[in-house]
């Protein structure tokens, strides 16, 4: 199975990811992509930007383990994970998880599981710019619930 894991400040392209999966992982019939983008509000406050910090080294290891787990559960042709770091603005892309599989059900499931695990296991932290300064985004228990549901 082809895999690519990138942590980068630069934006990414879904079309490039699609082309990469087609070239590198054979002609899979079903390709699922999830992209998270910076919203312009959170907890009823306007958000002017988002700063993304991570734990270099550990983040890559965690993402690699998440891809391992997906590959163990489903028959996948290829996976691309790209997560941005640094200063982002509302509307900017944050994360891309792209999965190529023979069957669309597997592509959807693997993509969603990797997003759920990434949310609770990958060492990224978000700091929001709000009107009176900055605040660190708090982890949501609903994300933990979603991630745990895959282990049931």
């Amino acid at each position, binding site marked *: 199975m082809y895999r690519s894991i990138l942590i980068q400040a630069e934006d990414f392209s879904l079309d490039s990811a699609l082309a990469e999966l087609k070239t590198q992982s054979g002609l899979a019939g079903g390709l699922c992509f999830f992209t*998270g983008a910076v919203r312009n509000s959170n907890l009823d406050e306007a958000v002017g930007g988002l700063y*993304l*910090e*991570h*734990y270099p*080294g*550990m983040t890559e*290891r*965690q993402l690699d383990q998440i891809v391992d787990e997906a590959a163990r559960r489903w028959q996948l042709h290829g996976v691309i994970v790209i*997560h941005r770091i640094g200063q982002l603005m509302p509307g900017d892309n*944050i*994360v891309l998880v792209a999965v190529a599989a023979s069957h669309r059900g597997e592509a959807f499931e693997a993509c969603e599981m990797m*997003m759920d695990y*990434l*949310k*609770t*296991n*990958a*060492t*990224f*932290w*978000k*700091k929001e710019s709000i009107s009176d300064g900055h605040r*660190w*985004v*708090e*982890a949501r228990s609903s994300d933990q619930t979603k991630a745990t549901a895959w282990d049931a």
Partner: protein
Amino acid sequence: MKVLFFAALRETMGQSEIEIVLEAPTTVGALKAMIKMPNGETLNAASRNQSIMAAVDQEMVDDLATVSVASEVAFFPPVTGG
């Protein structure tokens, strides 16, 4: 050994990294009781009011995990990527 702090905890600590000389292996919990925040509270005490995650050699662990004299230990709040 090296102890790293990230995100809000890095800001609270006022630094991203400290060096601690261990004479023998210990546990994450014991290490937390040794590290003081600028307000004088130990990480162990602080973790009663806020969730503090730990990693040893870049693997997520709990307070019972072993810390060797050459480990890289990190403390940080729950992650919020994605």
